[in-house]
């Protein structure tokens, strides 16, 4: 397509300068061409700003005059988002309804989770615990919300990545309301987040945390960080290791459309922090426990115990080989044989 072609209002000189086409034409174009998403979003934002400029005086945002010291704008989103309102009675009631009425049926539809090992929690009574699970997909959170038994299910808060889940007002509100999340810095847990979490646990709330920090990029686990261990030691509550299997098939990192697939959630024996144990060592214990649960889900409990006793439990982080061999080895992990999908030729 040469730059000189096209009638008036067509593609003009677009080598880096402002494009002489309307915003609507631009968004249409973006939809049809394979364009970088953030650029597309930027175009959207540019569009809304243009819309805001079109509003009459008191409603539109005032422009700042020169020579005036502007007040520092404190970001109310991200790690600073205040989620206390989400733990008030009406919000909790709404969350119960959402979890039972919406999330559970949808999870049953997409993930049909098989839950194992719940009897290991029988002796815990009603004390708050920290659920530490492996993380493969955004679906992990709704699945966990569906399978964690009473009395913890509706008395739960989740540590969620501050930049992703609390990026703007809308996502912050939804995260706090629907999944009861509190913002946690992704890169380094700040004092604020840690104190907030500890205070909640002391108040009787249980916590769901993914010690890996983020979703697995390639199907294998990442090393467990010390957050769960730290909180368990500080608040003197047990950590329940949980292994979630199969959510990676439903919605892997990078995909947007979920695909139904069966999942298995295995609860492990609660891990109680030892005398004067440090969080790093406990984090290793937790990771080992989840690895044993993965082994148990993949084969059976007796073989998993035997391998654990011999120190042979396969690691969650997979073999230290190149990318394709790691993906290849993933296939061996799945419990049971997958029936090959038969497709008949169309005649």
């Amino acid at each position, binding site marked *: 397509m040469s730059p000189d072609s096209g009638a008036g209002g067509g593609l003009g000189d677009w080598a880096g300068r402002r494009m002489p086409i309307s915003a609507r034409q631009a968004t249409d174009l973006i939809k049809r061409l394979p364009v970088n998403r953030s650029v597309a979003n930027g175009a959207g934002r540019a569009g809304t700003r243009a819309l805001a400029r079109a509003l009459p005086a008191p409603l539109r945002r005032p422009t700042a005059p020169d020579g005036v010291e502007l007040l520092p704008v404190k970001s109310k989103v991200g790690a600073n988002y205040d989620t206390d309102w989400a733990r008030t009675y009406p919000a909790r009631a709404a969350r119960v309804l959402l979890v039972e009425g919406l999330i559970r049926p949808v999870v049953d539809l997409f993930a049909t989770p098989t839950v*194992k*090992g719940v*009897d*290991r929690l*029988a*002796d815990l009574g009603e004390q708050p615990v920290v659920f530490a699970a492996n993380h493969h997909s955004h679906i992990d959170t709704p699945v966990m919300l569906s399978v964690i038994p009473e009395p913890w299910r509706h008395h739960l808060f989740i540590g969620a990545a501050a930049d992703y889940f609390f990026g703007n007002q809308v996502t912050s509100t939804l995260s706090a309301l629907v999944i009861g999340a509190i913002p946690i810095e992704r890169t380094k847990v700040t004092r604020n987040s840690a104190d907030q979490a500890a205070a909640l646990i002391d108040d009787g709330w249980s916590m769901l945390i993914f010690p890996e920090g983020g979703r697995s990029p390639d199907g294998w686990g990442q090393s467990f960080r010390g957050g769960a261990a730290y909180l368990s030691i500080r608040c003197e509550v047990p950590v329940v290791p949980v292994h979630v299997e199969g959510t990676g098939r439903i919605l892997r990192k990078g995909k947007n459309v979920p695909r139904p697939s069966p999942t298995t959630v295995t609860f492990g024996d609660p891990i109680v922090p030892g005398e004067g144990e440090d969080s790093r060592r406990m984090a290793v214990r937790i990771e080992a426990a989840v690895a044993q649960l993965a082994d*148990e889900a993949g084969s*059976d*409990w*007796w*073989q998993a*115990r*035997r391998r*654990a*006793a*011999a120190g042979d439990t396969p690691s969650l982080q997979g073999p230290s080989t190149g990318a394709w061999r790691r993906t290849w080895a993933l296939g061996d992990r799945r419990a049971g044989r997958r029936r090959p999908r038969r497709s008949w030729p169309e005649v």
Partner: protein
Amino acid sequence: MPRPGFVLDVDRSTPPILFHHGEGFRLEKLPAGRSRVIYPAEPHEPLEHPDAAIRDALLNPLGESEPLPALLKPGMKLTIAFDDISLPLPPMKRPDIRQRVIEAVLDLAAAAGVDDVMLIAALALHRRMTEAELRHAVGDRVYDAFAPHGLLVNHDAEDPDNLEYLGTTDQGEEVEINKRAADSDLIVYVNINLVSMDGGWKSTATGLASYRSLRHHHNVRTMQHSRSFMDQHRSELHSSNWRMGKVLKDAGVKVFQIETTMNNNVFGTEGPMSVLQKREWEWNAKDRISFAAMKAGLDRLPQRTRRSAFQSWQAPHAMTSVQAGEVEAVHEVTTANVYAQHLVGVEGQTDILTMGLPYISPYNVNSILNPILVACLGLGYFFNLYRGKPPVREGGVVIMSHPTPWEFHPVHHPSYIDFFEQVLAETTDPIRIEAEFEKGFAEDEWYRHLYRTSHAYHGVHPFYMWYWCAHALQHVGQVIIVGGDVRAVRRLGFKAASTLQDALEMASDTVGPDATITHLHNPPILMADVT
């Protein structure tokens, strides 16, 4: 602080007493001034950390025994035997005690590198357990790990290739047990000691035995000389099993015994069923309303629904102690713990003993309580829950309350049907029954086939039910069943009455007009310590 059991002397202000009546209840007023009610102790506190207690017991055994890890070596043959569906009663909520203990044992076995492990449900001549029942007992993890490989099995007492004869006691009692168990380097037996009859050498010598062994102590003479079979030191049943235990020891069978006790929290201390565990004058308004509602609802339901509602009840009773190690040392401590929960001091005997029979016995879990089992539950188990002397005098009357339907579960109890139709129609005398009919039923090919392949009790089992009543039948003068099916009651050789007052009237023929009465307020379980 749980209150101990006690004996209430009934007077005019005593409210009507709760009688269990199968899948239902009755409130009966006992005559004032000459009745007493024995109430069970309140449930003892369960162990707070059961898994820790189990591990502790395995590492610190009683008697002459090394800790379990020392007994587990790589390359050994390990057999874990556990009590079958007849314990506990009613079935308990998950996780079952057996699941906890077996997982703890297997943890140690895995750490020691033991490969050859087999789990056997030690059911002797009881019926095979179904998959669901096994899963409930040992848990899903253990089931899924062992059953698919055929390493979790029901004991088959009629498999000629899987029985080993180990010798005879000095009184001529043959000892023959499961071959896999006999050939193992170690048998770990996981017990639930619900009552003081359970455990000790009876676990291995009876639970894993065959008919050839069992007939030496499951017979009329032994039962008549067991006064009672709940009291190990005055029970011929136990003496025989202990002699067999000696043969087992001498033959080199090594048993690491794990025994556990439970509290008698059958109906819970909160919830709708807790009213059944409370003393009648302590029922508050909520209790009374819930009892009335429950009774009214039950009366309206059809029998099948009622039965399945009751059979699906899982009791919140929990473990109160766990002991492990050498059989006899462990059993002594366990029995003391069982007595601590069950024994209630009672002074003297009375003319009449009344009892309300519940819906469940060891032999009808998930099944029907047929007339023979009614007799066994009342005259066998409940009657024998005494130490010293029975609470009723010799020649007295036993009155039991149960609908006694003429109904049998055709899959679980096929030989019971024939026993009821053919044998009891002929005679109810246990000695004649044993002499004339036992052999035929024990050797019948069809019953053997059903025992081995279906879920049926062995052909000879109804005889054992009748022998269990032998001591009571010898001791009392008359047995009356209140509210039972008349034809069925007559076939059992007892008398039928429609109300308790009628029954007391009928009893006056045997014990006179102003007879004294003892009522066992059982369940929850109690044991009368009669002086």
